[in-house]
């Protein structure tokens, strides 16, 4: 036990400082306000610190002007555009983030409150430090997932947290003032709990990790809801400890979907440029339930989702945006690494998918049942992440109207399973005697990708 504790401490001795340094690099290189909705997120925290979040008062109006002036000084606006700081109304800082629960912002408000007399940029960087702390915890959690899932593979135990750490878009968002930071940590903790649940069954530790993780996630952002679907599978596997026939779970899933579909949905004829055609609509009782308790207007979304005449080129565009956001974009998604990196990553992903397909059948003999189920869980998590963003695209307007393309950052909570599957797929795609070199090469690739991001791309964009 002492040797194990010593070995764990030895890993933390290099992993935690590495994550801290990496988070600090992204923290200092990104100029103030150059993350998704950072002005709005910071304003929410600053209003909590100033005691004016429920009802905006003069302090809050002053804050908006201070932030807007800072945004101008740090070249946030296009040349020639200057915010109006003399108007009596608050300066416009983008989307109002007060629709989110206040937990994350309350955390950020702690250092902001202490620094209220300091320049607003100092307050912002202090808020970013809170995020960097959560980033370090996320990397450590990714390491624990690797230790749990690959107990006999020391190389993989080191490679997985390194890949998570070296992912540029992940480090970029996790060093920003943004409630996605806490959500990503919580859901990574839930994933750890789910893996332990599958391995050990209904034990206190995994249940506690899942319980606390989901509660804090819901107190951070409503979109944590999406994790419930994969958790359902983890629960089933925690209860069904013995192997089941491979077709039973898909059959149960198909029957459940069919039952839900028949009870909640009904066919409807709609018009449009393509003429009359049939789509699915939500039955009135379910639509009223969703609206009342979940504040979701499902009918338009369901109709749009089942109407192929509205798709056009949109799914392809969304897929490209999500893929590049996942691996190679930082800032507000406006800074992209060179397209050669994106093509290289696409090639890696394709090889990894082939490796997963090929190795999946061979893995049946090499991996324990709980390990295979955990990998299936990762696949479900990644699929749910992608699917949820395709759903988010809806309801789609007519094809001649521009549509909002959701960003890949909404999928960053799937980063750990995503990189796990990438590493595993690439390893399985290579002959056994080269697998160690594949792991080294993947880490080297991500290290180069990461350095290309902060050392050249970001610095070149902001400071040359």
């Amino acid at each position: 036990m002492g040797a194990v504790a010593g070995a764990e401490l030895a890993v933390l001795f290099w992993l935690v400082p590495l994550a801290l340094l990496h988070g600090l690099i992204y923290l200092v290189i990104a100029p103030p306000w150059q993350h998704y909705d950072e002005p709005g997120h910071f304003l929410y925290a600053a209003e909590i610190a100033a005691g004016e979040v429920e009802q905006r008062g003069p302090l809050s109006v002053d804050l908006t002007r201070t932030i807007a002036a800072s945004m101008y000084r740090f070249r946030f606006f296009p040349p020639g555009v200057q915010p109006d700081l003399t108007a009596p109304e608050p300066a416009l800082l983008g989307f109002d983030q007060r629709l989110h629960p206040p937990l994350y912002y309350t955390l950020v408000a702690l250092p902001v409150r202490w620094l209220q007399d300091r320049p607003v940029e100092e307050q912002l960087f202090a808020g970013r430090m809170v995020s960097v702390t959560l980033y370090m915890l996320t990397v450590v959690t990714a390491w624990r997932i690797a230790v749990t899932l690959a107990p006999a593979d020391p190389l993989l135990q080191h490679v997985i947290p390194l890949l998570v750490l070296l992912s540029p878009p992940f480090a970029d968002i996790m060093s920003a003032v943004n409630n996605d930071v806490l959500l990503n940590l919580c859901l990574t903790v839930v994933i750890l709990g789910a893996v332990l649940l599958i391995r050990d069954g209904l034990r206190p530790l995994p249940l506690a990790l899942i319980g606390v993780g989901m509660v804090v996630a819901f107190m951070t952002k409503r979109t944590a809801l999406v994790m419930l679907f994969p958790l359902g599978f983890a629960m089933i596997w925690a209860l069904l400890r013995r192997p089941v026939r491979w077709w039973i779970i898909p059959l149960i899933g198909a029957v459940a979907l069919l039952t839900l579909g028949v009870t909640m949905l009904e066919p409807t004829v709609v018009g449009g440029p393509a003429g009359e055609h049939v789509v699915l609509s939500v039955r009135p009782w379910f639509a009223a339930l969703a609206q009342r308790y979940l504040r979701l207007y499902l009918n338009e979304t369901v109709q749009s989702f089942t109407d192929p005449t509205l798709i056009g080129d949109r799914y392809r565009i969304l897929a490209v945006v999500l893929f590049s956001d996942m691996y190679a974009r930082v800032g507000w998604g406006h800074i992209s690494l060179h397209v050669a990196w994106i093509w290289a990553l696409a090639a890696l992903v394709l090889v990894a998918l082939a490796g997963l397909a090929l190795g999946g059948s061979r893995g049946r003999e090499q991996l324990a049942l709980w390990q295979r189920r955990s990998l299936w869980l990762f696949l479900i998590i990644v699929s749910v992440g992608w699917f949820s963003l395709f759903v988010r695209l809806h309801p789609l307007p007519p094809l001649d109207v521009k549509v909002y393309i959701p960003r890949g950052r909404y999928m960053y909570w799937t980063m750990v399973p995503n990189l796990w599957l990438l590493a595993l797929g690439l390893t399985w795609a290579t002959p056994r005697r080269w697998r160690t070199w594949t792991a080294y090469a993947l880490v080297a690739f991500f290290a180069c990708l990461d350095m290309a991001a902060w050392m050249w791309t970001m610095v070149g964009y902001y400071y040359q």
Partner: protein
Amino acid sequence: MTATLTRGWAALALAGAVAVALLTMVSVRVPGAAPTPSSSATVALSDTAPPVEWAFTTERLGLRALAFRLAEPPPPGAALSVTITSTDAPTATLASVEVPLATASPAGDVEARFEPLWVRSSPYAPTATLLVRLGLASGEGVMLQGTTTGQEPAFTPYYEARPLDPLWPVTKMAAGRPGILGWPPLYALLAYAFLVALLRAVLVAVRAKAPVR
């Protein structure tokens, strides 16, 4: 043997950090564009006449000195007074120095040095239009070399730069930022520390034989 190797690597890493710190703490002066001096034109400064004023636009951030040339040996005890403001905010003094002319070089060059100025007229250009006021802090009269074009004395602006800037613009990264974030070596030291830590992490991963659990 292992302990010696470890200490050796640690010493090497520390030496690297010191080198990076020195490389970024040491700043050099880079001369900027200046009005063409005239061998025949002169500008007189006296204790009875008002200071000479002129506007000039910097070409980059970090102005840290203005050099003038004396047209004739100065009287004993004479000193120049140099005050710099921005045309955008004329009442806020950016720099104010007194330069004893006894410090002039044998060729008559004298420099007014001050803390680097990071002002810009606009966030979108690294330039600023400054108002320079040059007078006599003490002494009776001084003659400075003039220019071919204007009423102002010939001068050469010097800007701060770091040897690392062409490779990685740490001076620009730190410009205008509060507290420790305004210290250019921080960026280079962070990058260096991360790269060293990453190398160590990769070596640990390569050598990992025993699983943690």
